[in-house]
């Protein structure tokens, strides 16, 4: 079987497309600033989770390790989103 025919390649393609959407499409939607900002952050958090589960292979790791990193994905983007929401102009 060809090496690149793996789920990781599919994940990589999703990550690349999501990055392009955030950077060159959502960023230009300046009129709906808070909504675009929230979308950009949620997409980033989903991307981080994909890296953690598929690239770092934590989906197959002992549950306590997986929980720590999954918690990080919720807590810190959560703090960032709350901070942007509270400070919105």
């Amino acid at each position: 079987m060809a090496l690149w025919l793996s789920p990781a390649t599919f994940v990589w393609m999703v990550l690349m497309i999501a990055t392009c959407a955030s950077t060159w499409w959502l960023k230009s939607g300046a009129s709906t600033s808070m909504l675009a900002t929230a979308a950009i952050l949620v997409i980033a958090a989903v991307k981080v989770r994909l890296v953690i589960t598929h690239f770092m292979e934590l989906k197959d790791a002992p549950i306590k390790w997986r929980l720590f990193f999954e918690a990080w994905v919720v807590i810190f983007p959560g703090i960032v989103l709350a901070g942007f929401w509270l400070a919105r102009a």
Partner: protein
Amino acid sequence: MEMSSSLTATTRRLPGDPGVWIFVGADMLMFGLFFSSFVVGRSKNLDLYNLSQQALNFNYGGINTLILLTSSWFVVLAVHAAKMNRVKLIPHLLAAAALCGLAFCSLKVVEYTEKFNHGISMLTNDFFMYYFILTGIHFLHVIAGTVLLFVLWKKARAGAYGSHRYIGLESGATYWHMVDLLWIILFPLLYLMR
């Protein structure tokens, strides 16, 4: 039923050296606090932060995200190649990953130079202090990771990795994915969100 559950219990494993995971976890907590601190600073001076952000070129950050993601993908394939004992492929994939690391560094130097030429430095204001410190600490992680990838590449060329020897390779991969992951948050936080 019992057999299948005991099977999943034995196949659950942490890739690489657990020590690397503790370092990675601690590093991610540190960056998490940096992100939180940035958000607090921003809430106290919203107009300054939003105005300063416009001086950043998000194309650099976006392209560098694509570069790191691609580098991570090459590293994933290198680990897969080791597990499948496709020994000859491993150094090629690691070289590709390391070259992506170099590309990130080059673009970062171009970006910093542009800022300095426009008279922007760490002392310009609070936003740029965060910008230079956060991207600077991350940049040091990328430099260390790129050196690490070249070391792994050299070892792979000497035949150090295969289907029974890949713990060191996995440990390096774990670190490199963390560098990618931190940039995935850092880039939108500094360049995109407003």
